[in-house]
């Protein structure tokens, strides 16, 4: 009986993924344990292992297909003696998540977005792209801060050789010294973009993590219709409560952020419309749990560990959880597993420790909102018509307008502010 290979759920909250790369071709024989394909989500890539034996009869969802829903049939394994005509009636079996590659990914603390995985369909060797360059060319490129990937090679088999580097260097210089006042008479239709007075620079290849961050944030800014709301919260009460609670025990050390996380969780419970996502195609997804992603900065980037069921955790638990997650996030290699930093229905980012008054964060798709918390500082306020001083913290909410309207978002912020300004209400 043909066996269906399904798009696996790599984490409890994963709903769809990309078929980044098929590692087997149609007709290849499959043994249990063989790696079938690579599945990519926005934060991680995992290899899918086969539990069955047979021949890969058909690749249903080809390499490079994005947004494939979990449980979609992506391929079919034929058992011995079966024909391709048997296809269509396969029994379902889930590819086993490859534990080894999971661990491996953690150690690499990065994930490989599909753009970086070469589709090897037309290449003779299944190797990762290797840039051929002579030792001298490699060194000259390094010295001139040139990326070998941008240089075409004129040597044997496309090898980059000395004269290719020399040409690249002189091309760069030519661009910088071209006289722009004289219009170039050119028969070509490509008009080179003339740059002059380019400042000195140094190029470095970024890590995979940075590439992922860059691509996701760019996608977010380009695709998600953001709007922003800001509210100021007086936090004197909160600070007092925090101090008191911290004095009571050595077992925990509550931070202002812990309070904010709790406040957000409760607010999301009260205004559930904000705990939702826009799914492409006109679907509004309401989450039933409140999982809050907390932005943690680590060397070379940023990660958002998730506090699951945040509304069911008290301050102490929140504090311990985020503390542990943050500590492991900063380890080298990064000590979080994908479930621990994927998913989440709402994000919080706090730059208060840097003295930032307020800022507007970029939404982490597919979440609908992100709260940007600024510094709590003494500010002049007006109370009962008179000037007074209070510790004020500005919170800005970035909202996906497809999911949440202004009024709803404003309501959420109001609820949040009330919780923050009257911390005792967080007990309710």
């Amino acid at each position, binding site marked *: 009986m043909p066996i269906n290979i399904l798009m696996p759920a790599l984490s409890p909250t994963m709903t769809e993924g990309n078929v980044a790369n098929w590692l087997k071709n149609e007709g290849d024989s499959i043994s249990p344990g063989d790696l079938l394909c690579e599945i990519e989500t926005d934060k991680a890539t995992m290899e899918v292992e086969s539990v069955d034996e047979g021949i890969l009869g058909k690749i249903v969802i080809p390499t490079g297909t994005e947004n494939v829903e979990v449980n979609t049939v992506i391929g079919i394994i034929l058992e011995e003696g079966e024909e391709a005509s048997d296809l269509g009636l396969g029994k379902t079996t889930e590819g086993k998540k490859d534990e080894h590659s999971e661990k491996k990914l953690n150690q690499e603390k990065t994930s490989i977005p599909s753009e970086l995985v070469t589709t090897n369909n037309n290449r003779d060797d299944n190797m990762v792209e290797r840039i051929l360059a*002579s*030792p*001298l*060319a490699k*060194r*000259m490129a390094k*010295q001139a801060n040139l990326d070998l990937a941008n240089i075409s090679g004129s040597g*044997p088999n496309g090898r980059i*050789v*000395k004269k290719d580097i020399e040409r690249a260097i002189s091309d760069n210089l030519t661009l910088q010294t071209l006289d722009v006042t004289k219009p170039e008479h050119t028969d070509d239709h490509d008009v080179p973009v003339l740059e002059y007075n380019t400042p000195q620079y140094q190029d470095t290849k970024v890590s995979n993590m940075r590439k992922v961050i860059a691509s996701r944030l760019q996608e977010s800014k380009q695709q998600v219709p953001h709007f922003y709301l800001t509210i100021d919260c007086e936090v004197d009460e909160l600070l007092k409560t925090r101090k008191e609670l911290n004095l009571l025990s050595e077992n925990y050390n509550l931070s202002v952020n812990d309070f904010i996380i709790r406040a957000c969780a409760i607010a999301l419970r009260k205004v559930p419309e904000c705990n939702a996502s826009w799914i492409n195609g006109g679907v509004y997804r309401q989450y039933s749990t409140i999982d809050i992603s907390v932005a943690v900065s680590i060397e070379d980037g940023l990660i958002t560990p998730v506090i699951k069921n945040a509304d069911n955790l008290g301050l102490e638990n929140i504090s311990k959880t985020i503390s542990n997650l943050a500590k492991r996030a900063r380890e080298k290699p990064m000590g979080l597993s994908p479930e621990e930093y994927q998913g989440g229905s709402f994000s919080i980012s706090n730059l208060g420790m840097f003295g930032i008054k307020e800022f507007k964060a970029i939404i982490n798709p597919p979440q609908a909102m992100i709260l940007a918390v600024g510094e709590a500082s003494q500010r002049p306020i007006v109370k009962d018509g008179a000037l007074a001083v209070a510790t004020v913290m500005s919170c800005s909410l970035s909202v996906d307008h497809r999911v949440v309207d202004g009024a709803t978002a404003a309501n959420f912020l109001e609820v949040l502010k009330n919780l923050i300004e009257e911390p005792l209400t967080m007990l309710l």
Partner: protein
Amino acid sequence: MPDDSFDIIVVGGGPGGYVAAIRAAQLGLKTAIIEKESLGGVCLNWGCIPTKTLLRSAEIRHSLERLDEFGISATNIKIDLEKIVARSRAVANQLSNGIKHLMKKNKITVFNAHAKISGKNTLTMNFNDGNKDQIISSPNIILATGARPKELPNIKPDGKNVWTYKHAMLPKKIPSSILIVGSGAIGMEFASFYRDLGTDVTVVELLEQILPAEDRDISDFAAKIFEKEGIKLLVNSQVNTIEIKKNKVHANIESNNGGNIHKVIDHVILAVGIVGNVENLGLENTKVLTENGHIITNEFSSTAETGIYAIGDVTAPPWLAHKASHEAVACVENIAGLKKAHPVEKDSIPACTYCRPQIASIGLTEAAAINLGHKIRIGKFPFSGNGKALSIGETKGLVKTIFDKDTGELLGAHMIGAEVTELIHGFAIAKNLETTETELMQTIFPHPTLSEMIHESVLDAYDQVIHM
């Protein structure tokens, strides 16, 4: 295709010509080669091969002087010059026959004739054996007619007392004294050969440095050894007049600083360079351009006339057989439209001189590198520091390497000493692969060999030499 029409016709059967013909045949092109004398050209018949054969005899002759050093004694040593010369002729003939077989094997049509361009894409062949002229045509004609010794206005070879290289390799008896005009590779090889046979040798060189093409350090090193061997070197000098009186040559040699020397010798050997064989080819009716007696070509050996190519000694220097052979391949592959056709890189052509001690070099000399604006690192390692050199009793020599200080590019390598002509290929491979000092340092050279000096010389350039 009719019998008189070919895809490629090669004029000249030397290392340029016959290699072009073979490559063309390999690529499936209908090929013809026209050679007026013997296949193999000058190289095989009157150049590289016979001279190296002669020099081998001289080398063995010289080692007889040192038998005692190696714990051997012998008496009654005789030299049979006729046999020495005969051996060189036998080797040349053997190889020339070998080329004949290669032509047959590759189904290349061979014409024993003199060819002249007689129209667009057309050659008229005049046969040695009296048969009537024949006309053949091809859209691609490769001229590989080689070169001949340059003559000086006041020194004309007569084959008796004034020799060119050809006469010099067919001596009837060992001269008691000779004067060699020109201290390039050919001059010094003959100087070395005759000196080892016992002749009194004097070399006259116009420039300040013997072996002017070599790196100064190498030339100076060589000069010291030659002088120790008894070869007299007159640099900064030229032969003003010669007079032949009673079968002896009276030469008047003038030095650039004004001095005058009068020498009486058995023979003069003219070794002042070569000129291309561009005459009598019908070039005057084509667009082909020449300069200083050589045909001007581009990187793929095309001349100014479409359909006519030129390779080897008839074109620009260096005038070396291996340069001709590589030009041949590049030219033919380009004609055939092969993408991988690769033009000859001048700086990657090794040059070897087989005198004693041998000399081999590739790339830029120190002076040339500095002239081109390079900041350089130099490494030197003497034969006297090498175990194998000591073991075989060849302690005089030097390996010099020149690197670009910034990029680590191997700019040049220069060697003098026993067997260096067999070692230079290592540098040639490295240079072709665009090595830096790192790859050479990381290469494991076997011990005990002379080749280890290559490694040490590179290390020395970076202050990491071990055995010095």
